């Protein structure tokens, strides 16, 4: 599904990613963990196609297509979804109006007809119900005045509406209390099917108790320094990132 | 400030005081023109300085333009009309009476020196006290100049530069502030006395900061000072103007021009701490009018010009250090603290003109108005139609102390390009009583608390001053505030 090879990325003249390689197969759940400054958010921005990044070298293939040559909207329509750590607020643009725009953009890309407001509302209602979200979110501006937890739920709602092939969730657990975390995790789990893939970018291992990864990778100083199964997350919890780095040096 | 200017000025003032205090007058041998300005005076100035014809023509052209211009009228400033015919436009500093010892320097000035922590030897030098061999400012200055020349850096007076490096002066003089630009630019271009000339060749970083302290000055600098700094490709220079010592001058009008030119990948940092005599704190009379045109041209790609100023003196301050961001990727910065006390009036700010692509400007301006002073920020950020990808961020804040001062903010934000972004924010309030109370509760006196809070308010600007200067500037601010916070 996703093949990243030797990705080197710079931001504002400073190199952050120094050769990241990662392969994610269909139906797999991967977790990328790392301390602050390791390059986690740069990795997710690179996958989304943020204009401020400079791709020094490397390649990313998504479903066999060259992702680096695709604009952000092309990547989204091809089935890639990025859930942001800090979702931006767009006051004045109604949440449901925005979701309908995104949904219809995808339908057109798939050669289908757009849905009108009424038809879309039914779909939105269903998805909001799955996530236990209050109807009042519909008319509010996108993320406007939302709490941290509400913003994250809104990201998952978008994921539910857009039904991507590959979702990359950047620190979806940050700023959430136990209850919110559980709701978000359950929402994510309910959306995962055998042919959908997921990359969880996270700092803490806590999230992984709720969404069980198949593979865990450790990102440190712009490189993946260790990969393993779910038990790797537990060792991290015990040894910390420093312990792991010490281990890597040995 | 410039050595000779300080000495001449201080001498005049000291003598005036001596006259008042001790009841007798002293004669100073002087060589000055009679008052008044005319084309003949301009010619005489040029002749006196033995200038080449091209420079005489430059002056005459400026003078002619000046006669056609009306005096500027800024609604905010209350100025007595200036009588341009009551000023003498040339005065030689040949004769400087030396004082016998530091005791001859008035108490008030000595106290200020002490509070500012200015070392004894420097006090002597600034007050033109007969100096023993221990500290010889002339030899120190000579050493610096030699070190700079070894690195290829030219640092001398404008008059010397006209003689030694005329092609450079001719090429750049008036290229950033054309004589016809405004009233005071025209006046200065006609009658400028002297100032600094700096040329940094490509790929060079001077071994030290350039300070007007150490410029050898054979000609008088007076009130119409002219500075020209050129920084060639991939070079850097940091220039410091002014000092925290109080500057007295019987000449009331100071109309200077500073021009900076930065080529590709060059960077110029210009720092000013200015403490001109502000006039009688009750009446405001006798203070200096400080009208300066300072402008930098970021001519080259990725060039950078950064202005930092701490303004605490003058009766009237009127200056807008500006940047013309012509080269693609060029950067302009302006950091300013303007403190007004007594009856001072300040109208200061900056102009950032974005012309090239992907240019950036940053403006941080802090104004503090105490007593019955008036403090205005006036700024222009202009995005011309070609300025794609430009970015500006401006933050100007004003603090009012005591109920009778006034603070004003006049930003002009002109947007003409869809990909250029301007972001401006400003606030005005009085000093935060809660912060003061918190400090006082920890045993700090109210005076010190106010000083601390204001230092915090100005911190961002102080951080951009060269280190030693920054320490002096903080002290200066505290000193000035001491008298204002009852």
């Amino acid at each position: 599904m996703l093949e990243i090879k030797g990705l080197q990325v710079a931001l504002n003249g400073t190199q952050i990613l120094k050769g990241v390689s990662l392969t994610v197969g269909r139906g797999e759940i991967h977790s990328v963990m790392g301390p602050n400054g390791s390059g986690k958010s740069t990795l997710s921005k690179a996958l989304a196609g943020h204009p401020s990044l400079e791709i020094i070298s490397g390649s990313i293939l998504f479903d066999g297509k060259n992702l680096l040559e695709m604009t952000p909207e092309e990547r989204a329509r091809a089935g890639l979804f990025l859930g942001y750590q800090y979702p931006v607020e767009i006051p004045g643009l109604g949440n449901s109006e925005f979701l309908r725009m995104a949904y219809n953009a995808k339908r057109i890309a798939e050669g289908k007809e757009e849905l009108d407001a009424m038809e879309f509302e039914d779909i939105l209602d269903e998805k909001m119900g799955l996530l236990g979200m209050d109807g009042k979110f519909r008319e509010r501006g996108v993320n406007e005045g939302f709490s941290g937890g509400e913003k994250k739920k809104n990201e998952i709602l978008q994921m539910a509406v857009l039904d991507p092939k590959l979702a990359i969730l950047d620190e979806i657990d940050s700023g959430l209390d136990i209850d919110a975390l559980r709701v978000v995790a359950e929402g994510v789990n309910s959306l995962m099917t055998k042919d959908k893939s997921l990359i969880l970018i996270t700092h803490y291992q806590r999230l992984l108790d709720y969404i069980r990864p198949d593979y865990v990778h450790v990102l440190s100083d712009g490189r993946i320094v260790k990969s393993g199964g779910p038990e790797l997350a537990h060792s991290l919890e015990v040894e910390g990132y420093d312990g792991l780095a010490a281990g890597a040096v040995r | 400030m410039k050595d000779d200017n300080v000495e001449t000025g201080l001498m005049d003032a000291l003598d005036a005081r001596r006259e008042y205090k001790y009841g007798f007058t002293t004669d100073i041998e002087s060589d000055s023109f009679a008052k008044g300005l005319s084309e003949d005076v301009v010619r005489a100035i040029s002749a006196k300085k033995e200038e080449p014809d091209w420079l005489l023509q430059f002056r005459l052209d400026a003078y002619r333009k000046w006669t056609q211009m009306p005096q500027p009228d800024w609604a905010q400033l209350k100025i007595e009309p200036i009588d341009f015919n009551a000023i003498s436009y040339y005065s030689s500093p040949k004769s400087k009476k030396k004082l016998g010892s530091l005791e001859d320097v008035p108490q008030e000035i000595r106290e200020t020196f002490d509070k500012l922590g200015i070392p004894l030897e420097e006090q002597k030098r600034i007050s033109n006290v007969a100096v023993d061999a221990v500290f010889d400012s002339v030899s120190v200055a000579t050493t610096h100049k030699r070190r700079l020349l070894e690195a290829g850096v030219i640092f001398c007076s404008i008059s010397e530069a006209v003689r030694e490096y005329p092609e450079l002066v001719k090429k750049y003089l008036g290229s950033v502030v054309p004589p016809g630009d405004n009233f005071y630019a025209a006046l200065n271009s006609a009658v400028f006395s002297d100032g600094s000339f700096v040329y940094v060749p490509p790929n060079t970083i001077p071994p030290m900061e350039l300070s007007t302290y150490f410029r050898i000055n054979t000609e008088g600098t007076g009130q119409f000072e002219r500075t020209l700094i050129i920084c060639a490709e991939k070079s850097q220079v940091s220039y410091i103007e002014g000092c925290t010592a109080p500057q007295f001058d019987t000449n009331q009008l100071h109309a200077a021009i500073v021009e900076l030119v930065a080529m590709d990948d060059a960077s110029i940092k210009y720092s000013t701490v200015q403490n001109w005599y502000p006039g009688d704190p009750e009446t405001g009379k006798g203070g200096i009018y400080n009208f300066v045109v300072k402008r930098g041209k970021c001519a080259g790609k990725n060039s950078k010009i950064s202005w930092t100023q701490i303004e605490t003196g003058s009766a009237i301050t009127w200056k807008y250090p500006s940047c013309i961001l012509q080269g693609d990727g060029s950067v302009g910065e302006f950091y300013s603290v303007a403190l007004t006390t007594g009856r001072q009036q300040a109208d200061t700010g900056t102009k950032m003109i974005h012309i090239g692509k992907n240019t950036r400007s940053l403006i941080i301006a802090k104004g503090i108005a105490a007593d019955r002073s008036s403090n205005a920020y006036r700024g222009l950020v202009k995005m011309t139609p070609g300025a794609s990808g430009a970015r500006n961020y401006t933050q100007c804040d004003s603090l009012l102390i005591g109920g009778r001062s006034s603070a004003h903010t006049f930003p002009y934000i002109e947007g003409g390009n869809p990909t250029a972004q301007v972001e401006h924010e400003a606030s005005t309030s009085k000093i935060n009583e809660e912060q003061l109370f918190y400090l006082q509760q920890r045993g700090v006196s109210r005076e010190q608390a106010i000083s601390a809070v204001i230092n915090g308010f100005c911190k961002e600007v102080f951080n951009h001053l060269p280190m030693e200067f920054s320490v002096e500037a903080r002290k200066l601010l505290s000193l000035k505030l001491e008298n204002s916070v009852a």
Partner: protein
Amino acid sequence: MTTQTATVPREVEIIKSFTRSLAGGGGDGSLISLKEASIKRFGELGFPKRKHEMFTYAQTGELVETQFATSLVQSLARFAEPLKSHILTGCERSVVVMVDGYFSPALSNIAGVSDHVVVTALGEAAKNGRILAMLEKSATGETDVFAALNGAFFRDGVMIRVKPGAKLSAPLLVVALSSGAKDSLAASYPRILVEAGESSEASVIVKYAGFGGAYFVNAREDVIVGDGAALGYCVIQADGPESWNMTKLAVELGASGRFNHTMALNGGRLARRNIEAHLKGEGGKIEISGASALAGKEQSHIYARVYHEARDCESSQLFRNVVTGDSKTSVDTTVIVGEGASGSVSRQLVNALILSGGARADAKPNLMIYNDDVKCSHGATSGGVNADQLFYMTTRGVSRRDAERALVAAFLRSVTALLPTPASVEAAEELIVRKMENVK
């Protein structure tokens, strides 16, 4: 349109035409002294020459040189049909109509609010000494030359008085309709005086619109908000791109008064609005918000002065402008806090979206503070749509173009949503939000 001959200054020509108009009977006699004071003031002020502080960004040269005939309303009949489309839902029985600057009782209908509101011709109202004195004082002290022109040439205006303690159930709509003609340019001078009695609660909507061609409307709105009164005051400026619109709003706010002023502006060949607000009573609160969206060569300018003259008053201003094509907008707004106005709080925010290479947006939010016990802040931004918001939307598959359109609409809606009634919000949406959708 004739061009003027070089020798006689425009001011002199205009003063002559004033004298002629008075000779021909200049409307209600009680207003003559006011008009004479205004023309005198006009002569003192003169049209702006280069670099005039009140017209920094609004170039009035072309307007000043244009010869306009004064509108004389012959028949009301031709206004009846165009009027219909401008009467907002819910205001059918609370509408005051002015046609080419003349108050038309025949076309007005205030049956729905007649218990709470008294509507009279201004000449009639000026028979009251207090009202006349107030009008004359504003005439002699006028600082805006175009407002002085209105003071001299208005025919008869309308006074709307909300009774003390009244609470209006429906908003009162004032439609100022101007007629244009293909072969001539006419100028009209609507004049509106609104007085909200003490402790009253009301909402007034003023709509400027026209038909039949281009015209020049030079209007004056005086608003007095009594102690403890709350007045919502909305202006929808819906003139066409070829017309000229100059308006001045002078508002006085009493103690604990509330004045909420919203605007939806369509611009014009030159459209400029001068807002002069005096917060005279303690604890008064004023909110001003305006949005404009311009295309082609349209212009819309705001010049505002808010004076905090009493303690503990609060003012906040929000201006959001979108410029496309070769249009120009400017906002020159100053908050002046006087020496006695301790406890003043003020905010100003000016945001502009510049969407084309030829468009221009200027902002000048100024502060003049003479008292230290204040909290005053302002901000201004200009540029294209927010890059982070745009990126976010594209990563959800929305095309850049659609995303930009949606963001422009959201930007304008943040202000149009503040208009007092659903009908007025809809009118504003139609006027400026949908206008932008059609532009790109």
